[in-house]
Structures are given as C-alpha cells and as structure tokens.
C-alpha cells in the first residue's frame, strides 16, 4: 500500500523518563561544562604566564602546581610527568586520555552518554557534541602547539556555548531539561570553587606584595577564569581587591557563574526533580541543598576569610558531591525489589 493516505498517529506523551536516560543527560551536561571550565582555566593561566616573563622555573612550577592541586589531579600528574611546566600541564589537562578529567576524556564521556540517549536529545545537540568529538579525535598535541593552544581552547569553549544555546532553544522543558540544568549548575558550582582555590594554593605573597603587580594580575586571572572580570568591574568600579574579588565570585546574586547563583539554580532544579514543594524538605538531597544555600545566604565574606577560604571551599565541594550523589540515588530504582517469584514460575 502506498502511503499517500497517511493517517496521523497520536504520539505517546513524553512524560516518563527512564532513570538511565535521566542520569545520562545529567552526566552529559556535567562533562561538557567541565571541559569548558578546564579550557578557560588553562587558557587564562597560559596567558598569565606569558604576561610574566620574569617567572623563573620555581614560580612556574608553583603556579601550575596550584592549578593541578585545585583540580585534585596533582597525584596522577606526578605519576605520568616529571616537570609541571606549561607544556606538560596543558597536555595533561587537555589531551591526555590517561587523565579522566582532561578535556578529551570529558568530551568523549559526554559523547558516550549522548550516544546512549540520542533519541532523547535534539539532532542539533547531538551534532554539536559529535562534531566536537570528531574535532578532538583528529587533533594531536604537536598540532595544537603549532597553532597555539589559545585557538584550541577557543574551539572548546565555542562548542560548549553552542551546545548550551542549542539545548536552550531545542530541548523541551521536561524532566530531562531539569536533569541537564541540574548537572550543569552543580558542575559549574564545583568548578567555581576550584578556580577560587587556585589562588589559595599559590603561596601567600609577602605583605608588601599584597596589591602589587603580581597579586593583582593573579586575582585578575582568577576572575577571568570564571569569565567574571568584566562583570566584576561593572559591579565594583575600583581596582581589584582580593576580598572583593572573592566576595564577588562567591556571593554575586546576578552573575551566572558565582557560587551563590549556581547553588540557587542547583536547589531550584533539584526541588523540581524530586518534587519538593513544601517548606520542609523530604529527601536527604533536598535538605543538604537547602543547608548549603542557607549558608551562602547567611555568611559574609569576613566569616569565610576568618574560617579560612580554602576550608570553606573544600567543604562546599564536599556538599556538592553529596547532593549530586543523593539525587542520582533517589531517582534510581533498583532491580533488587524484583522478587524471586518470577524465577520460580518459570521452572
């Protein structure tokens, strides 16, 4: 029979979401965000070092060491490379498949997750991830250094932005959307704490150097790593003060990469996913998220500095990990509940 008398078929409502699909959306989104943040972090710091030609080897090692430490990748790095110089660190954090957090590993993982749920995402989203994957698959370290890593990082960031824009404009506002956003903001919150933590790992400068050229440049680099430099200047007209910069990155209510902003979104999407509507939270994940949000609402920058910025950041990272794990657990239905009754019926 020819199909010219096509009868419309009403579609089943897309209201159910497999747990596996939800988690793939969540991880796909996290990995893309992670790759983008790593690209920005590396780009800014590579630039920063070029600006300070006076850096000797020790300074360089310290600088890159602090970046590795903030990503908790320093131990692995030392087992593979000897010297923490620009070349090695950038290779390790961008293209090394032995590093599960490298840009390459993140994009491969994002694509693997996307491939499992291709039917769920728009063709445009899939094409963007796939294109980025094909781009990375065809690149060697030599090639990237020949072209200059700057362009490479630009490519990664552009693809990530394209992906987020396409998600925004082609993905239905369903539960899947909530998982994508939840993943994105939890990853971004985590990365923002790590960007800030880089500064802690750089040995505190002598009192005389506070406000000096290097110190200011370093804080500038921190702000740029979070794409926050312009936003900071718009907010505080005066020069970059360390505590003001930290305050901005942690507490800004309007800047979309600030910790507070990200945690607010995390809480919002988590509540939607877990159907948390009342003032008293039912699930452990929602309670943990509320606690973190309340902390950020009630603390001032001085409280944090008094307690120690690094300690605060590490604690926040732990809370975020916990929240992420809890949401995954809560939306996963295990097969354990299947009784052995079925098996007996068969025999």
């Amino acid at each position: 029979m020819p199909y010219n008398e096509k009868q419309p078929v009403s579609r089943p409502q897309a209201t159910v979401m497999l747990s596996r699909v939800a988690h793939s959306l969540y991880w796909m989104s996290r990995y893309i965000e992670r790759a983008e943040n790593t690209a920005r972090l590396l780009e800014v710091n590579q630039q920063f070092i070029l600006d300070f030609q006076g850096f000797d080897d020790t300074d360089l090692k310290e600088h890159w060491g602090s970046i590795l430490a903030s990503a908790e990748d320093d131990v692995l790095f030392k087992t593979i490379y000897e010297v923490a110089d620009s070349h090695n660190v950038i290779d390790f954090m961008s293209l090394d498949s032995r590093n599960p957090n490298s840009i390459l590993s993140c994009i491969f993982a994002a694509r693997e997750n996307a491939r499992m749920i291709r039917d769920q995402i728009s063709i445009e989203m899939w094409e963007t991830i796939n294109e980025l994957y094909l781009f990375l698959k065809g690149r060697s370290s030599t090639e990237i250094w020949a072209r200059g890593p700057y362009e490479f990082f630009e490519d990664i960031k552009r693809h990530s932005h394209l992906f987020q824009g396409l998600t925004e404009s082609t993905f239905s506002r369903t539960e899947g959307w909530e998982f994508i956003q939840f993943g994105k903001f939890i990853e971004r919150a985590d990365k923002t704490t790590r960007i800030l933590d880089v500064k802690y790992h750089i040995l505190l400068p002598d009192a005389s150097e506070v406000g000096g050229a290097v110190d200011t440049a370093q804080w500038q680099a921190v702000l740029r790593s979070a794409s926050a430099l312009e936003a900071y200047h718009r907010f505080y007209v005066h020069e970059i003060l360390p505590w003001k910069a930290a305050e901005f990155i942690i507490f800004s209510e309007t800047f979309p990469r600030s910790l507070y902003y990200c945690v607010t979104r995390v809480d919002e999407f988590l509540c939607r996913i877990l159907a948390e509507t009342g003032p008293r939270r039912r699930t452990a994940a929602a309670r943990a998220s509320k606690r973190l949000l309340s902390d950020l609402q009630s603390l001032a920058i001085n409280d944090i500095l008094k307690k120690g910025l690094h300690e605060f950041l590490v604690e926040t990272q732990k809370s975020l990990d916990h929240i992420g794990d809890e949401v995954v657990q809560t939306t996963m239905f295990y097969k354990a509940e299947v009784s052995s009754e079925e098996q007996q019926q068969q025999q």
Partner: protein
Amino acid sequence: MPIFDPSYSTDNFFDEMMTSKGQVRPHYDRLHKRLGVLAEDDFNKRRAAVDLAFLRRGVTFTVYNDSEGTERIFPFDLIPRIIPGKEWAHIETGLIQRITALNLFLHDIYHDQKILKDKIVPAVQILTAKHYRREFMNFSVPKNIYIHICGTDLIRDHDGQYLVLEDNLRCPSGVSYMLENRAAMRRAFPNVFQSYGIQPVEGYSDQLLKDLRYIAPRGGSKPNVVLLTSGIYNSAYFEHTFLARQMGIPIVEGRDLIVKSSKVYMLTTAGLVQVDVIYRRIDDDFLDPYVFRSDSLLGVPGLVSAYRAGNVSIANAIGTGVADDKAIYAFVPKMIKYYLDQDPILANVPTYLASDPTERKYILENMDKLVVKSANEAGGYGMLIGPASTQAEVADFRNKVAENPRNFIAQDPIMLSRSPTWCNGKLEGRHIDLRPYILYGEKVTVTPGGLTRVALRKGSLVVNSSQGGGSKDTWVLRAES
C-alpha cells in the same frame, strides 16, 4: 568533464540504466541527461557534503572485531536506483503474498502442524531448525501476527527478473539508511528529485508505530510501546535510536525493565511504568535469561512469563526465526500454494537442500559451480561462492556440508543486475540487491522503495556492509513506466 562517460559498458550483465543495446531505459532518461551535463567537480562537492553530513549526524554502523575505528559510515553512492511504478506493483503484491503465507505457516507449525502432516514440509526440517521454539507450541500470539516487521532481500537475474534471495524475519536492519539516504539525496539533488515524481518513504515510522500499537494487549488509546536494544555496542545502534526518535517512544535496555507479577515495567525517575508492547531488536536467545540463554545480560528476567500471560506483546513474535532458516526458505513457494492456493508471484532462487540425499549428492559434485550457504548465518558470513573460490576453500566447505548437511543449502549463482556506481573516479557497473521493508498490522504495507545495497568491489556479488558493501537511494516512481 561530465561524469557520465559514453564508454560506460554493461559487460553483458543486466544493467538497471542501459539496455544490452546501449540504450537508456525510459525511467532513467532524465537522470541520464542530468549526469551527462553534471561536472565532476560539482559531483564531488555534493558527494563530500553528503559524507560529511552522515559523519556529523553519526549515521554509522559498528564494526565488530575492530578495536580501532568501531564506528563507520555506510558508504553511500549518489546514483539512485530507479524502479518504475508498474514494476513496483508487481514486487509489492508478491511481497504481500509471501509474508501472508509465511505468517500462516508460523501459526500452523506452532499449532496444528497441518503442513507437516500433509508432508509438504518434512517435519525433520522444523524439528531441527535452530530457531524453532517448541516451548511456544499452542501459544497464541496477539492478533495471530508473528511477523510484524520483515525485510526481504530481492535480486534481479540476467533477464531482469526479480527473485527472492532470503526473508529476514528476526530483526531486519537497514531501514534507517533507507530514510537517511532519501534525506541525503533530497539535499544533494533537489531539482532532479522534485521533478521525478518519487513515491515517499517517510511514512514508515508512523506505520510501524501504528502496527505496534495494534497489538497492545490492554487496548486503550495510549499503550506504552518501547524499543528494546542491546545497547550502544550493537552494530545497528544508530538505527535503534533513529527509529525510537522517529516514533517518539523510549529506547530501553534490558536493565531498564523489570518483571513483577508477570507484568513488565520500566524503571523511570518517577517509579515503575507498565510496558505494553516491546519492539525488540535482540534475538530470542537473549530475551530472557530464565528461559533462553542463562548467560545473557541483555535480556529481562521473567519477560517470557509476562508474554505468556498476555500482559505484554513482542514484535516480532518469539519463534519467528524458524521461518527465515535458509532451509525453510526453499519451501516458501510450496507454502504459498498450500495456504493461499496461489502461484508465487516472486520466484525463489533455485535452491538445493543438503539434507536431501539426491540434492546433497548434486551439491557435493558441483560445489565449484554453486553458492553454498549456512542455514542460519547472516551478514554474508558462512558462505562459499564456488566459482570465485580456491580448490582448498571448496574442499573445506565440502567437508562441512558432508558433516552437517541440515545446516547447508546451495543455490545456482545468479549474476545480479548492475547499476552505474561512482568508483575510482568514474561511473562503472556494480552488482546490487534490494531490501524492501514490509509491515504487518491491521493490514500488510510495503514501503515503496527500500535499501538498495551495492557491492563496491569490482566483480563482487557480496553486498553486505560488513563485506565492503555500500548503499543507494531507491526511487519508486509514481509513473507506471
């Protein structure tokens, strides 16, 4: 320089575009004219654009036994295969007749077995068939449909006559390429395409969904239909996601489903949701580790109990594979006569059964002139093309056949028709086949077109993607001729 070169030769094969006298067949006329003025540069640009689009969209298949690439695009040839409306009408009625008879056959052998009692098909052929499921004797499948989805391989012989090469009744693949190839052609040659009057293939997914819903056990207007895949490592995974997306149904793996009180549920973020129909893309053997292979991690424990209880429908039905055994294939013309009292519209390729002593003798003596196939392999594996093989290969196969005759058949080699194909920078004739897709729901429908596969290696008769095959778009014309 235009890409169609007047020195094109049919080499005494049946050519889809040219007659043996070198005249262009009428239904190829306009395409031929276009190719006569299309510059090679322009053609190459369009070719590159199509290949890139396939790669970007991830229209790929997975290569087994290949640790490196794992995903490849299916080579696509830009020269379409064209079938006039009248020829197609013949194919269509022939396919409907065939699937109707095969479906009656399946119902019969899982119930009264009249065809065995009447000795039309020897009982031993069924009892020894690898995919015969005696556990399902006297089990009634929903609406008595066994074969919901079928892909039948057709070839044309030296005279251009269409013959059935095999019936694929388990999980025939390739339909996504039929649809993607069409989309690619429309982008590459919008003008030729528009003026040609081509019947659309795009109704396939809607029809499939309709037919799947038709067998839902609970009735109701919104049954939950899912596509069951073995996962991203399956060679046809792209197709699974493609179809699921087109139909708007969830794609599930075994681990996403559980069975409770003989009902199947999927694990969703909001809890358990009952499943009514499963379009499975995994073989019987892997469906349920309680019943079939206990080492299968792909299946759903308890699925068969839910199926037996009538709480879930499965397409294609369990046990359907017995009818696409190549030894059973030989009996299809007799089935058509037996069940429908009609003469087959589409003929089989002359086939010899190694299990029959007289035919076995013939096979063993003439092996170097025959194509020998194992009864249950697919993808061009486990076969011998006698005329193209060495003496050692023939001797090896002769031993295999003598050892296990039930498992082999032999066929006369058919000089498949050829179609102009872009190879080594020019158009040359290459052998092709055709896999149309047939759906069986409230009625039987055949999508006008199908997947034309082409053997890209010069002289090769093997069109499978795993063996260096490519594909073409297939145009069925509205016009009669």
